[in-house]
């Protein structure tokens, strides 16, 4: 077959296998399969290749997906180690579906799973569970070692080899360190600790909770503050930052580890982006709107090779909605979220700058690379008019990080310039260029995001 014709049919086959072929394309391929033996053979070969790749998950690939996709740590050729939770669930689902009909009859053949030497427990139950990013298997009765489980919906039960049973209530992110030590990143977990497992630990971002034979619940809120409820028995709570150790029993009320006021932790006030006339926007150098999303702030520095995809984000806070009188400093709270554009594997640690717009320029209805405030097209790569902007803060996102809350002190912001202002416009640029043009466009939530908090200015009064 001529190369051009082969390429044409290979694209058609690709579309058919992806279930995206139009009726016309499908029929065109079908007709060629019937009338042209070389197209028939091409279809048989490519379809067979597609099925084999599905079945083997591309075993043999040397390029790691790494953390770029928030998959479990990959990087080896070992097929089992590189499977993501999503794929693992698919594979397990497929395996179960595949054999259910047959093996239901061959019950005698099914051997219960056996724990490996380094397993710490197993998932025993789950109800209406929808799992998020997990580094551990999420099928019931599967044994696991150290790792994390993120339950987005429903409930689940874990039993550790120490005998401790733990109920997880969504939404929760829970980490198993070993059979006697666990960690609640956020959400609620209830531990039932039997005799003999005293000393079991369930730590949180702000406390170490040690059991003395109890049933107790630990909840961690979005800001990392913990609440401990003892249902039965006694626990010890230790707060490392303040070196406070306290015993809590079922006779006492629950203990919320809210921090006592200190000069460093004076009450804070927030100015959310959505307050008043607050606005946001992202612009891309080629003005291609298909590379922007309404619910994301997008920032990218592709370097000289692909300037067209440079993106910067704009935030305008309505200062009339905040009381700045006693405010001494400001910081900007951002939520980094999973980006649909580019790959994290192709960016290193990335440094960002927050610029302040010196004047209160009016924003046009639609922001473009050319019309966005303080645009100077001659000033590559970010097209920022230096005379009308001023860098007021910087932050760094480590290589591989795709999610998380970031607080940026705006320590170069001259607070006196805010006195008579109605609004404050901030522009976010990334100073670090990517190592390949496939690099990640960093994404942050804005006020349209349903799952992550919008940007906020934090007003510090100390």
């Amino acid at each position, binding site marked *: 077959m001529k190369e051009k014709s082969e390429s044409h049919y290979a694209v058609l086959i690709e579309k058919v296998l992806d279930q995206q072929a139009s009726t016309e394309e499908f029929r065109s391929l079908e007709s060629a399969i019937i009338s042209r033996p070389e197209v028939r053979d*091409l279809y048989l070969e490519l379809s067979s290749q*597609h099925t084999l790749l*599905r079945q*083997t998950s*591309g075993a043999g690939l040397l390029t790691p*997906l790494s953390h770029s*996709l928030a998959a479990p740590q990959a990087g080896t050729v070992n097929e089992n180690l590189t499977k*993501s939770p999503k794929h693992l669930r698919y594979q397990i689902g497929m395996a179960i579906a*595949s054999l259910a009909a047959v093996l239901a009859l061959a019950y005698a053949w099914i051997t219960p799973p056996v724990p490996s030497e380094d397993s710490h427990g197993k998932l025993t139950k789950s109800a209406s569970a929808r799992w998020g990013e997990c580094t551990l298997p999420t099928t019931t009765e599967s044994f696991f070692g150290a790792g994390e489980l993120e339950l987005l919906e429903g409930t689940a039960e874990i039993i550790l080899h120490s005998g401790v049973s733990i109920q997880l209530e969504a939404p929760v992110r829970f980490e198993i360190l070993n059979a006697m030590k666990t960690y609640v990143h956020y959400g609620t977990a209830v531990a039932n600790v039997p005799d003999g497992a005293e000393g079991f630990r369930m730590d949180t971002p702000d406390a170490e909770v040690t059991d003395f034979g109890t049933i107790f619940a630990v909840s961690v809120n979005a800001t990392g503050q913990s609440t401990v409820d003892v249902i039965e028995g006694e626990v010890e709570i230790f707060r490392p930052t303040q070196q406070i150790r306290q015993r809590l029993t079922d006779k006492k009320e629950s203990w919320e580890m809210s921090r006592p006021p200190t000069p460093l932790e004076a009450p804070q006030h927030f100015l959310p982006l959505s307050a008043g006339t607050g606005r946001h926007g992202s612009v891309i150098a080629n003005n291609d709107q298909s590379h922007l999303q309404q619910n994301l702030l997008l920032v990218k520095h592709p370097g000289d090779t692909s300037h067209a995809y440079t993106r910067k984000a704009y935030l305008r806070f309505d200062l009339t909605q905040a009381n700045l009188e006693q405010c001494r400093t400001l910081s900007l709270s951002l939520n980094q979220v999973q980006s649909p554009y580019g790959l994290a594997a192709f960016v290193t640690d990335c440094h960002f700058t927050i610029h302040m717009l010196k004047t209160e320029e009016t924003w046009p209805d639609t922001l473009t690379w050319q019309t966005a405030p303080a645009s100077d097209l001659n000033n590559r790569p970010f097209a920022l008019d230096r005379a009308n902007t001023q860098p007021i803060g910087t932050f760094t996102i480590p290589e591989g990080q795709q999610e998380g809350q970031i607080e940026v002190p705006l320590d170069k912001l001259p607070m006196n310039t805010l006195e008579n202002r109605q609004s404050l416009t901030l522009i976010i640029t990334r100073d670090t260029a990517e190592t390949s043009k496939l690099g990640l466009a960093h994404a942050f939530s804005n006020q349209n995001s349903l799952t992550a908090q919008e940007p906020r200015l934090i007003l510090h009064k100390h």
Partner: protein
Amino acid sequence: MNESESITSFLQSLSSHERWLAGYVHTLIPNAADAEDVLQEVKLALWENFSQFEPGTSFAAWSKQVAYYRALAYRQKKAIENKRLTFSEECFEILEEHYSDHPQTISEQTKRLSKCLAKLPAKWQTMIALRYKEEFSIKEIALRFELTEAACYKTMSRIRLNLKKCLTAS
């Protein structure tokens, strides 16, 4: 043959033909989810009728025949419902006739494919990994790579042709 021996024999036969059989059903039914459903039906039918299979004859030929009729039944059902694009009966017959009758070649092919994948450029390997490890659609891959969908289809088909060439050469 008692029940236990029968189960053993069936599972051994099925496991050595499973990938080949799956490839056959997926070739006739390009819609992956539908193909998997049909494959489950085929496996169940094979078990239910295993007593009719004559030891010493070709399990491949027998299972292929069962799969063909199940796939055909699916095609007829979908044709009536008009919900899916399915190959015509004539196309089915041609694909049936020319699909390899040698299940043993599949394990060889799997090994060769693995070696060929390792030879692909890093970007192509990443695309294959997204497609088959992470189950991204072409649309999602296109977004990741800042490509148009058309360009992404073209690249994926080039990768496939490259793999085909490598498989043939090796």
